[in-house]
């Protein structure tokens, strides 16, 4: 798979549908992000780093797995940028690289116990592996 900055940036922009140029750098997304402290790169940084083409840095950060997918930043962004969609798109791009599964099917299955809801396992399957 191609890995040029251009390819990665274009792919992220295409599959996320996000236009980072709309961002006015207000920081609302990072002000509202419930999991801010756990993330190495924060939602507003995803926007500016994608714009600058620093996708690989983001791909190699655990931040992409720490987004809760709650869309608070998407809903509240005053510029209709939707930073959360960028996080999701970068995570997706990472999965598409060879051998870049976060967890294998068996790892996810190991989480199964008497209480964990099926949909959480299903979600993990979707989020952590190709």
């Amino acid at each position, binding site marked *: 798979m191609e890995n040029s900055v251009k390819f990665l940036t274009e792919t992220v922009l295409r599959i996320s549908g996000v236009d980072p140029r*709309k961002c*006015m750098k*207000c*920081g*609302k997304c*990072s*002000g*509202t992000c419930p999991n801010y402290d756990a993330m190495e790169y924060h939602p507003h940084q995803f926007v500016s780093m994608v714009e600058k083409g620093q996708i690989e840095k983001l791909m190699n950060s655990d931040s992409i797995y720490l987004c809760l997918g709650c869309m*608070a930043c998407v809903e509240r962004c*005053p510029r209709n940028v939707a930073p959360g969609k960028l996080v999701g798109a970068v995570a997706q791009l990472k999965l598409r690289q060879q051998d870049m599964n976060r967890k294998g099917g068996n790892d996810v299955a190991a989480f199964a116990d008497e209480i964990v809801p099926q949909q959480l396992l299903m979600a993990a399957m979707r989020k952590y592996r190709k």
Partner: protein
Amino acid sequence: MQKIGVFVCWCGSNIAGTVDVEAVAEAMKTVPGVVFSTHYQYMCSAAGQKLIADAIHEHHLDGIVVASCSPRMHENTFRKTAEAAGLNPYMVEIANIREQCSWIHKDKEEGTAKAIVLAKAAVAKLLHNKPLTAGTSAVTKRCLVIGGGIAGIQTALDVADAGYEVDIVEQRPTIGGRMAQLDKTFPTLDCSACILTPKMVEAAQNEKINIISYAKVEKVDGFVGNFRATIRKKARCVDETKCTGCSLYMNKCPSKKGKDEFNMEMNNRPAIYIPFAQAIPNVAVIDPEQCVKLKTGKCGLCQKVCTAGAIDYTQQDELMEREYGAIVVATGFKPIDPSPLNEYGYAENADVITSLELERLMNAAGPTKGTLLRPSDLKHPHEIVFIQCVGSRCDENTKRGKPYCSKICCMYTAKHAMLIRDKYPDTKVHVFYIDVRTPGKNFDEFYRRAVEQYGVDYIKGMVGKVAREGDKLMVRGSDLISNQQVEIAADLVVLATAIEPDPSARSIGTMLTASMDTNDFFTEAHAKLRPVESPTAGIFLSGVAQGPKDVPETVAQASAAAAKVIGLLAKDHLVTNPCVAGSDELLCNGCSQCEKVCPYGAITYVDKEVRGPGVREVRRVAQVNPAVCQGCGACTVTCPSGAMDLKGFTNQQIMAEVDAICL
């Protein structure tokens, strides 16, 4: 055959950059009717105009086409040039090869080809032009100002000062507007009332100014110089001529549930009230929604205590018709309701307030008598968070607010922060901001004082959530400079809400046929060069009705609008637009269709002897009053017999343009 001259303007590189002006001038030489064609760097310059005048003389031209910028820019310039050179000014046509050609196309070949077509269309039209003579109409020397805030007051004072009568129509019971609600003004920290109330008094005492309060304009007919307005003066149930403004009734009125609009509804008022101490007119008003007498018929206490006998429960709305030469729109603004942006919790927390509410909380005449107490428990707040840009600068697709910057928020927040730190030094003040915008005289210095002298904590970032926890408001936001998410336990949160045009503006705009932008701000005739006029002649713009402004800008614009009004009212006659409709009596079949569609009532039918080839009889035919016709052309299309036509835009002229474009 007419002799037409074509003048192609380079407009520096504006046109010449994408249109080969030389080729256009050359191509036009072969067009039938054209006897002269040339190009020049700046046709609108003195030298350019001289070139045109000389050509008119030299080649005995009877019509000219100027291929240049939009006719909205320089049509008048070139008409005057032509007139000065002895040509009828309506024998001028403009081909718009700048705004509608060179500026939108990149390819020179394409631009040149299009410019030639546009110039040919203008020639084709011009071949059918007829010399037109403008008539005149009288000017009613009185001005209507809609809105009695600082903008309306200033315009009225200036117009009255020049000796003309002015009516101010204000929808609230008093003039004063938003400025009356402000505590202090930036960047000087003058007391707002102290500088506004003398102006209000001056307006009241000026014999040329007639204040019609608690009223609204219901209908406007007519045109520049000759407007007729219907004004509804709402029943205040108090005789303005008798009321002394004594306020004796205040404690007697049993109804106490009316919301005090002047104090942003933070406290209650009786059903009969005067909005504030310095109100003008200083006359009480009865709120029909709250008055026990008006609702049940039983009470009448205020009437009993009124020694002046001013209370009249039977008073009815009064309709008045007045004539005006000019109308000024000064309808002002209101802050948006931040409830839908409920991550700030405005809808459910009394201690999340808007900046205008804070003005009232800090004002000596406000609900807390000027002591800063938070609304929920009337305690002193010790930690206050200000949030900027609430509902401003939003992408329109988000539906989270306005796309524009509200302009005044940065400065009034600095003012609030500074005043609070000054009066209550133990109070911590934080300001979440995106950018601090201070382009104004002494503005940035003012903001820096708030930071450096008063220690206001400016945090670059936005707030994502305000959540009540016990008696604190937990404010979570980003601090982009330190790359942290911060949480502040605040006692009071103040939202710098966006401002939007007063809700009355939209219907007034429609009534006046004055165009508005998508945000309901009135559009100016030219963004740079005619900023206080509406494109609709005779309508002028004052204050925030045109766009967000602070007090000094509003006052400046209000005076500018007044200057324009005075310039209009000083004329005894106005030159009317000669491009009006006219009916060919021989063709008219007397059907009355045109009369029905005319929005101005300019068409009447008369019995008239019609003479023509083989015709001599009395017929019922349409007649257009050229002083009343505004030249829309509705009648021309509706006319089934083709008798009605519009001068300057005749069927023949437009068809000729169509042909020239399509062939």
